[in-house]
């Protein structure tokens, strides 16, 4: 009848590039292998069983899943072997996903809150649609559509463009992504050097030497399962085992699994990268072709006077002896790492998707530039085993928006979050929305999609205050999270098991689409937010109704994904479609200039030169005077300000009083999405590394703890200039003595019974500031003191 999917069959799928009858047949076999009905009497299983391919939505990796549905119930998930990110694997979050679907604390119907009494009343969807349509029409009639704001989380695929388009049609430029909390620093580092505003993809499978600057490849980086797959292959999937070096104040799982752990002083990654660059240049190990012919600013150059290039700047300022003082990494180690990196090609230096780069100053972006410059020095840009540039599946363009005077006036207003104005280099300043509202910016309607800013931003209680000034707040959360608790309308979206959606596959360089589809009928009276906005558009009438004429969000997806090369039925069956095989662009070729280097530059020339000297940054800071630069926390003048360099982190809290740097870490188990904290299996395994469960803890070097008279498991008070929290201390030997760690995603005051009232939220005592040039949040520049509670 059928046979299970063997490794050979799987390879065959890759070989025929999927989509042929063979591939479909193999997948059918793979999914029906578990569907045994004709069996001996001792085996009872369900009669009605199916396997549906979909996508997991519990972290930013977006792994493909095969969902086993038995008698209409979701009972098990497996990784989809055809999905290139997870290749059949699935992490604990994905495995526990049925606890999301069948969570006892899910919201079951739309509700309206009376602000005065806090009373919640269930309403009909029609009323919700009316209320939102009315509000938006009122704003448009008043000539201020920009006062409608949408904040969203890690929303990928067509939903992001759909929501953005809806807001544009209404007339608001205010669609604010949460990227300023995580990936924007790395994207900016990439933008200011390579000229592409995107996270780099890394060809780990072909790398010989991987140098991770706090990128947390194995737990909770920007795309954890993708980097785990690459790591696993690099280690033991091929003939030669690649070397992995982790630079991070905390060892964690990735440092423990690496060949070498470099416990660096927090916030000094730029100095280490440039110290290595110094050795690489002095040793003559640079890729001469690349730096001479495809980089801008390696040598000194003349442009309105003699300008200093990367080479001389680094040779003058980053001698390993000096870098040792800055970073705490021995100069001999720096020299050795540099030699290993430059002579074991392909070598790649990896940027974190979050964490260390968000240190409250522009120094974090310089660090990203410095780390990425290492890749340029050894010629690892757009080359096998190096950095790839993420390509996306071409989607059918939305039809042009009809001319609409109200909308075009609204779209010309400054962004509410200050991106592009107050934060000239920023594209989104999520956490700054609260400050802007508190400073008097007018927001009449606020939509929260996939967003829980009250919990997930440093000093999130500012959002609670800001929300009091916004008359109309709509939450689309599936759970009553901290932000939904303050909303006027709570319009629950079904979980990813019950709705349509998609993701662009990221991390492999080549384009791909991963589909979410309803694997069962929705359990409750919920609505896909895409469908909701379509109905709102219809109710609003006029140009907006015309612009959004689709009957359902599924139709929107069908429209957008028409030309990807797979028909809708095939995509539904496979759950994933891609154009596999990354094709490296030749240096200097048309594709190089058009897609790889310089394509996104707004001011500097799109000439295919990798900027070791950032011309784009020069457009922003080149003409600034010393005091203006100082206000941005940039100590270098002139050429130095345009070159990647080390800036000392301006820590909040005096070192004498607050001796430890607080690092809020993300766990593989709980991840960064609030609803994961309400999944009991994830709570249970959350503290594996220190044998904790259902709780928070403070990780501390045993020596440091003993000096304070603290035993393992003692209750402690952790205080920063912004507040204090109580938790227990756990000894962690693989941690710098001047750093303490608090895991994220505990300390909820809402969401549900499993999450609520458990542990503490470290973000409450973090510096709530935004970096002045980019609007990045500050996650790693807060100092704390620790004492017995």
């Amino acid at each position, binding site marked *: 009848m059928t046979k299970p999917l063997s490794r050979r069959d799987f390879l065959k799928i890759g070989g025929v590039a999927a989509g042929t009858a063979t591939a479909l047949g193999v997948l059918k076999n793979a999914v029906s292998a578990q569907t045994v009905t004709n069996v001996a009497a001792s085996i009872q299983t369900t009669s009605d069983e199916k396997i549906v391919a979909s996508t997991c939505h519990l972290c930013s990796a977006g792994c493909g899943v095969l969902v086993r549905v038995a008698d209409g119930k979701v009972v098990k998930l*497996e990784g989809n072997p055809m999905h290139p990110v997870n290749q059949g694997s699935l992490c604990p979050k*994905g495995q526990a996903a049925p606890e999301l679907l069948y969570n006892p604390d899910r919201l079951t119907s739309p509700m309206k809150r009376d602000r005065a009494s806090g009373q919640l009343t269930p309403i009909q969807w029609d009323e919700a649609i009316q209320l939102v349509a009315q509000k938006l029409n009122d704003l448009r009639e008043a000539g201020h559509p920009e006062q409608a704001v949408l904040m969203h989380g890690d929303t990928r695929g067509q939903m992001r463009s759909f929501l953005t388009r809806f807001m544009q049609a209404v007339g608001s430029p205010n669609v604010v992504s949460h990227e300023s909390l995580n990936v924007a620093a790395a994207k900016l580092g990439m933008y200011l050097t390579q000229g592409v505003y995107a996270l780099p993809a890394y060809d780990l499978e072909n790398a010989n030497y991987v140098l991770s600057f706090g990128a947390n490849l194995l737990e909770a980086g920007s795309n954890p399962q993708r980097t785990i797959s690459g790591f696993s292959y690099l*280690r033991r999937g091929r003939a030669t085992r690649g070397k992995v070096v982790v630079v991070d104040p905390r060892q964690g799982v990735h440092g423990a699994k690496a060949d070498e752990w470099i416990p660096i002083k927090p916030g000094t990654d730029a100095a280490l990268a440039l110290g290595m660059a110094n050795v690489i240049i002095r040793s003559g190990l640079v890729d001469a072709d690349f730096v001479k012919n495809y980089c801008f600013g390696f040598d000194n150059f003349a442009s309105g006077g003699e300008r200093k290039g990367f080479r001389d700047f680094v040779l003058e300022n980053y001698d390993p002896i000096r870098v040792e003082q800055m970073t705490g990494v021995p100069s001999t180690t720096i020299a050795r790492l540099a030699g290993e990196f430059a002579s074991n090609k392909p070598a790649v230096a990896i940027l974190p998707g979050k964490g260390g780069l968000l240190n409250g100053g522009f120094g974090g972006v310089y660090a990203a530039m410095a780390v990425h410059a290492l890749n340029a020095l050894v010629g690892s840009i757009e080359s096998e085993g190096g950095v790839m540039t993420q390509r996306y599946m071409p989607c059918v363009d939305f039809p042009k928006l009809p001319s609409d005077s109200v909308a075009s006036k609204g779209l010309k207003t400054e962004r509410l979050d200050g991106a592009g104005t107050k934060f000239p280099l920023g594209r989104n300043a999520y956490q700054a929305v609260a400050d802007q509202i508190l400073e008097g910016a007018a927001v009449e309607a606020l939509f929260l999609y996939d967003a829980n800013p009250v919990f997930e931003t440093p000093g999130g209680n500012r959002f609670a205050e800001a929300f009091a000034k916004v008359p109309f707040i709509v939450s689309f959360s599936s759970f009553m999270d901290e932000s939904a608790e303050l909303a006027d309308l709570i319009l629950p979206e079904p979980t990813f098991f019950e709705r349509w959606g998609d993701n662009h596959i990221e991390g492999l360089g080549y384009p791909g689409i991963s589909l979410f589809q309803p694997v069962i009928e929705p359990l409750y009276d919920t609505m896909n937010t895409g469908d909701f906005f379509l109905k709102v558009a219809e109710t609003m009438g006029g140009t907006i109704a015309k612009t959004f004429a689709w009957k359902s969000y599924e139709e929107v997806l069908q429209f957008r994904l028409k030309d990807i090369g797979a028909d809708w039925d095939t995509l539904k069956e496979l759950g994933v479609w891609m154009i596999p095989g990354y094709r490296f662009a030749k240096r200097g070729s048309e594709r190089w200039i058009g897609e790889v280097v310089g394509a996104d530059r707004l001011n500097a020339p799109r000439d295919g030169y990798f900027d070791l000297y950032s011309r784009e940054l020069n457009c922003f800071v080149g003409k600034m005077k010393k005091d203006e630069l100082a206000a941005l926390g940039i100590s270098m003048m002139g050429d130095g300000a345009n070159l990647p360099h080390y800036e000392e982190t301006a820590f909040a809290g005096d070192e004498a009083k607050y001796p430890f740097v607080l690092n809020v870490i993300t766990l593989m188990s709980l991840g960064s999405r609030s609803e994961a904290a309400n999944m009991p299996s994830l709570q249970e*395994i959350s503290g594996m590394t220190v044998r904790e469960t259902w709780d928070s803890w403070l990780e501390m070097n045993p020596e440091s703890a003993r000096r304070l008279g603290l035993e393992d498991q003692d209750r402690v008070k952790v205080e920063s200039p912004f507040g204090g929290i109580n938790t227990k201390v756990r000894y962690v030997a693989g941690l710098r003595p001047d750093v303490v760690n608090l895991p994220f995603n505990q300390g909820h005051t809402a969401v549900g019974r499993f999450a609520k009232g458990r542990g503490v939220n470290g973000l409450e005592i973090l510096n709530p500031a935004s970096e002045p040039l980019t609007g990045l949040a500050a996650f790693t520049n807060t100092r704390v003191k620790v004492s017995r509670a």
Partner: protein
Amino acid sequence: MPKWSMVIDLDKCVACQGCSIACRFENNTPVVAPDQAKLGRAMRWNDVFPLPVNPTEETGEYPHVKAQYVPRPCMHCENPPCIKVCPVGATFIDEEGIVEQNYARCIGCRFCTVGCPYGVRYFNWYEPQWETPLAEHLNPDRVEGQGVLEGPAVRPLGVVEKCTFCIHRLKKAHAQAEAEGRDFRADEYVPACVQTCTGKARFFGDLEDPDSTVSQLALKPRSFRLLEDGGTHPKTIYLREG
């Protein structure tokens, strides 16, 4: 007759605990109450833990320290101590080398939980419970051998349970081969933890077949077994890091 074995490559394992949770959803192990979990009574047949387990134990001078993480299913010993201490013969090794638990016979004395040097045996201190509607996700399969439950239907209060190498998957694969009138092949089945492994660190197969992946890996210089000198002869085999 195959002799089932698992190989775990610690060089690829990233301690994500996907195996722990895949096992839970495949085998219907309950989430215990938080206070019970804190007592160490969480029911994860395949647990992952750090070494040293006690963080106050010194393992070197900072920065020359390295944490280790060990995923640990049942070792399915060839000479299992748990069987010897069972007063009622409730635990036994079957013809394919899987150490099984007969829940109907188990009297809950917990000798085996002490007798097992690997701590892989779990006692049901409470009636397994799921807050409504969480029980909807339970695996509906129920496999019985000679009228006795083998898995993965929920076990009752007061019995010991343990990793079965997902015996219901094995039985289903056997049944399928039979229904199709052909011989069963050893690569037709893997346990849930092997299938989900994010680092592709787990291998599963027949140790009797010298050409199987597990047999080949078992010969590697990196291979070792937990508490080898205890004479238990585990069929779960590890490969050292590095």
